[in-house]
């Protein structure tokens, strides 16, 4: 296996993009990444695209071919990856493996979701497919309900409070204020979150990530050739993925995601690093409780101590560990298939010192953490400055 670097990153603005189609989102993000990388179309040898539910959301399948067609990159191989909300993360991993293996030198990897073409109910039903249709959704569970069951148990076992959960959203909105790509660039207070109304107790509206249109793209290159294209490549130090039961009830625990624990341990082993080496982390905060569990499961805090760490401000920008500088899924937005790639784009910009007012001052090593469903898939990547 050889080393692989990111040599370009591009995003669309995240939000309700009423005037922009699925394929226009693909075009926006991909051309931004290609322009950032200085590669030419003819240099790209394969495409990996992550998207969760275009069949349900826009009536379109065969997304691999659509992307190659839209980008004028026929006839190179192009494939679509799906792992629910971790579709972007698994696409990045497959793209990474294709370059690390020597099969390709330069590939494009992206993620996209167009979620506002259908009603909120239809989006909820489509996203429900990330859980266990037969033994969760059919019985009346919603995704907020599934994460609420984890939150309630976490509160019961460790004394985590609703205010501590709310502070995740407050922090992520504060970060998104400085992110021009974010869906919600407004600050919120703890009171705003606490007063936002229960969706599935103890989770309230502002504990939940929104419905978002958006796309993200990266250009990956064998590290030995990366300097031909950029002075500031970002090397992918590790790529790890793990699986768990589709249904929450069948897991060992409700208070953490074992798939995250396994993927994180494997990633740190690959990179010969430890959690304390990380300066910036984009973690999967589809719900506020997910961020608390993530910072525990990734090894930054002991199990049960995540809520206190958030309350003490340790995960704020330029505090002990800068978590979700993009605004996270909560405030940057969560176009499901795009999220895993957006996380890597954010960490890339942080490591390149291009993150503007949300820049982490000391920033050499970064982590991304992308989860599918309620934790049946977890993907962890580690990155460092390659210059």
């Amino acid at each position: 296996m050889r080393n692989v670097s990111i040599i370009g990153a591009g995003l669309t603005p995240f939000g309700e993009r009423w005037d922009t189609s699925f394929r226009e989102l693909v075009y926006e993000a991909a051309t931004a990444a290609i322009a950032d990388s200085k590669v030419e179309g003819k240099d790209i040898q394969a495409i990996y695209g992550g998207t969760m539910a275009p069949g349900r959301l826009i009536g379109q399948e065969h997304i691999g071919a659509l992307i190659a067609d839209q980008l004028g990159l026929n006839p190179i191989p192009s494939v679509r990856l799906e792992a629910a909300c971790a579709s972007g993360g698994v696409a990045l991993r497959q793209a990474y493996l294709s370059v690390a293996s020597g099969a390709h030198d330069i590939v494009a990897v992206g993620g996209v979701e167009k979620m506002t073409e259908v009603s909120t109910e239809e989006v909820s039903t489509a996203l429900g497919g990330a859980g266990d249709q037969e033994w969760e959704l059919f019985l009346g569970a919603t995704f907020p309900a599934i994460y609420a069951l984890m939150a309630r148990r976490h509160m019961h076992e460790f004394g985590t409070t609703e205010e501590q959960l709310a502070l995740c959203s407050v922090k992520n909105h504060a970060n998104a204020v400085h992110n021009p790509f974010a869906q919600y660039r407004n600050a919120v207070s703890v009171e705003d979150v606490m007063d936002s109304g229960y969706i599935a107790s103890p989770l309230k509206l502002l504990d939940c990530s929104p419905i978002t249109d958006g796309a993200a793209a990266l250009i990956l290159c064998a590290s030995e050739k990366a300097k031909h294209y950029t002075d500031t490549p970002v090397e992918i130090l590790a790529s790890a993925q793990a699986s768990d039961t589709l249904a929450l009830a069948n897991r060992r625990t409700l208070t953490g995601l074992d798939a995250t624990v396994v993927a994180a341990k494997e990633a740190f082993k690959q990179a010969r690093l430890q959690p304390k080496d990380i300066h910036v982390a984009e973690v999967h905060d589809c719900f506020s409780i997910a961020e608390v569990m993530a910072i525990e499961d990734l090894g930054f805090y002991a199990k049960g101590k995540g809520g206190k760490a958030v309350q003490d401000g340790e995960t704020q920008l330029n505090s002990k560990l800068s978590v979700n500088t993009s605004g996270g899924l909560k405030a940057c937005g969560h176009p499901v298939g795009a999220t895993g790639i957006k996380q890597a784009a954010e960490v890339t910009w942080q490591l390149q010192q291009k993150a503007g007012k949300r820049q982490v001052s000391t920033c050499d090593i970064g982590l991304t953490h992308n989860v599918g469903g309620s934790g049946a898939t977890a993907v962890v990547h580690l990155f460092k400055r390659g210059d």
Partner: protein
Amino acid sequence: MPERYRLVGSKCLTCHSEFFPQRKFCPHCRRKGKIVKHDMPTEGKIFSFTEVSSGPEGFEHQTPYFMAIVELKNGVRLMSQLVDSPKGTVKIGAPVQLVFRRIAEDEHEGAIAYGYKFKVVG
């Protein structure tokens, strides 16, 4: 649907692990396991719960309602709706019992799905 109607799960005769829903083979023993159908206990306790204020399609008439992870007496956990359980009684650790109920209605075809729910007892 013996699983959804009567809570019939599986048991591995090799390692004695019990499963719900049913499994075709034992993930612990793999080819050395022997899986048979096995009735789950009808009593357990609330392991975690949530009150759903924003229900999905087909559940409009029931919203708000409680969903729970129930831990059965054999240690197997499953997800279920809680019914006939006043708000103050729904707590982690509260004893619950299996009941047979209407799950959801399909507004377009009029089909009604039935299955298991649990209620707080004692």
